[in-house]
């Protein structure tokens, strides 16, 4: 059994596997399938200062090897989470990451203030393509990334992960902006904007017309971006996008991720998170590594 512990921005995780925000609710549903203490961290669905209703259904469309979603960040608000979910979650031996969303910089600061230091880490969701008012704009403009990162950082001492959008020309610019703003880590990728048309009705499947692509279909893009970001910044990286097996996760670690998140694969198989964790361990054991840290960034690049 290899040493699976990783340290992400000063926070010790028992292993490098967490949940991709928005695919795991606040943890209650999957706690019926496995013990959440098996996860290095649990990343919660997005929280905003005020409750959000989200978009109309259909909010999900199946595509080849993946899905599109347009949930629209439906959530009951940060205070509701604190009052109804937090204590329950704390029974598990795992770190808690709150995913923050909002439509303005002030919104993000407000959620961070409401949550205070009640969770172990924050993940700034500046990249969700579903929010008309600015979710997209924050994540695609380096100046805004730096600004929002430094503002949230100033409002809170909780280690801050900035989650990057792949819907940009150069992901390294965004990662550098997060680093300049004082981010403690980056995570990537969020979903890629996509569209699915039902050729029988000639209408988009999603009520919202467009939505975020995730699942195995996006994995090569995500691995490439993790590789690029690894070379651009010093920050710890949480890699995600299509991971379904231990082997998938190993690709991300080799590309330079310090930890990985699993999302869509769990929507199909409730045990995906556990399988990825043990798959990582199997690879390490099979190849004679003592620690997961030994393979981070160890891709042997050609030329």
């Amino acid at each position, binding site marked *: 059994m290899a040493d699976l512990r990783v340290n992400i921005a000063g926070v010790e995780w028992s292993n490098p596997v967490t949940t991709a925000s928005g695919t*795991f*609710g606040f943890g209650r*549903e999957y706690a019926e399938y496995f013990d959440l203490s098996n996860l290095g961290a649990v990343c919660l669905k997005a929280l905003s200062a005020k409750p959000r209703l*989200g978009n109309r259904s259909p909010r*999900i469309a*199946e595509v080849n090897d993946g899905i599109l979603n347009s949930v629209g960040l*439906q959530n009951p608000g940060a205070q509701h989470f604190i009052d109804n979910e937090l204590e329950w979650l704390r029974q598990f031996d795992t770190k808690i990451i709150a995913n923050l969303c909002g439509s303005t910089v002030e919104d993000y600061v407000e959620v961070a203030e409401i949550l205070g230091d009640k969770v172990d880490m924050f993940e700034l969701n500046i990249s969700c393509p579903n929010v008309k008012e600015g979710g997209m704009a924050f994540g695609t403009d380096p100046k805004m990334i730096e600004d929002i990162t430094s503002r949230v950082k100033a409002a809170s001492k909780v280690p801050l992960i900035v989650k990057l959008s792949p819907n940009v020309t150069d992901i390294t610019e965004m990662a550098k902006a997060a680093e300049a703003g004082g981010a403690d880590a980056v995570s990537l990728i969020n979903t890629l904007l996509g569209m699915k048309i039902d050729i029988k009705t000639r209408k988009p499947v999603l009520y919202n017309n467009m939505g975020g692509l995730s699942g195995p279909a996006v994995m090569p893009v995500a691995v490439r971006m993790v590789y690029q970001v690894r070379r651009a910044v010093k920050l710890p990286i949480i890699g995600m996008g299509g991971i379904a097996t231990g082997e998938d996760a190993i690709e991300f670690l080799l590309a330079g991720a310090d930890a990985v998140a699993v999302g869509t694969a769990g929507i*199909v198989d409730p045990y995906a998170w556990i399988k990825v964790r043990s798959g990582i361990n199997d690879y390490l054991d099979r190849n004679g590594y003592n620690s997961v840290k030994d393979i981070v960034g160890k891709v042997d690049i050609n030329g």
Partner: protein
Amino acid sequence: MLCKLAFKSELRQGLYNFIIDCPEMAKAAKPGQFVHVLCGGSAYLRRPISICDAVNDRFVRFIFEVRGKGTAELAKAQPEQLLDVLGPLGNGFEVPEELSGEAVLIGGGIGIFPLLMLAKKLPQKPLVMLGFRDKQSAVMIREFSNAAKEVFVASDDGSIGHKGFVTDMLKSKIASGAKIDKIYTCGPVPMMKIVADTAKENNIECMVSMEERMGCGVGACVTCTCTMTDGSRRRVCKDGPVFNGAEVDFDG
């Protein structure tokens, strides 16, 4: 969970009857709940299918129509093959201990299947109203007859039973002065909307089973919501699929 496909038959062209061997699920299943089935092939997501019946605390039965690639793939499964199935999922129909009048079950198309188990579990035999496209698509009438006090059939083209909407039969039953305690319905949204409205006008409690595109099926991804009359959005897979008809905004 992996369950063996114990029995398979084709009820009519493109409509499959599956019985899976899964004692845990069979014991826990309640009418109106569903199973979430991995179909194989290139169908990435699971497909939600209502539990039609649970037999001998060992078998779960479901019936599905081939619509697209997932159900087409599932239809190829052979007896003895293992299927990856989650369930029973969701909030099913509330089964009262006693009824103060008739229970009326109204199903349309593929919505009739979950009503069979409900009919068997109710404390007295219900009135069952089934709506089909035409005679060819009409199935399971005999099975429902065994579990019902009376079965009424309607079809769009009149090739079997009453020509017109299944909801017409509900209205005429109410007009005839029948004392109805509860209405349960599953089928196309326009049909359920009329049923729910009719129930409301006549002060009858009505449970509706909603359908929506799903991801996880267990309540975590929040992709399957329907809109409620209070403006909130609730998860069909976890808070439903059965809701109080008066609380659903069918146009939301």
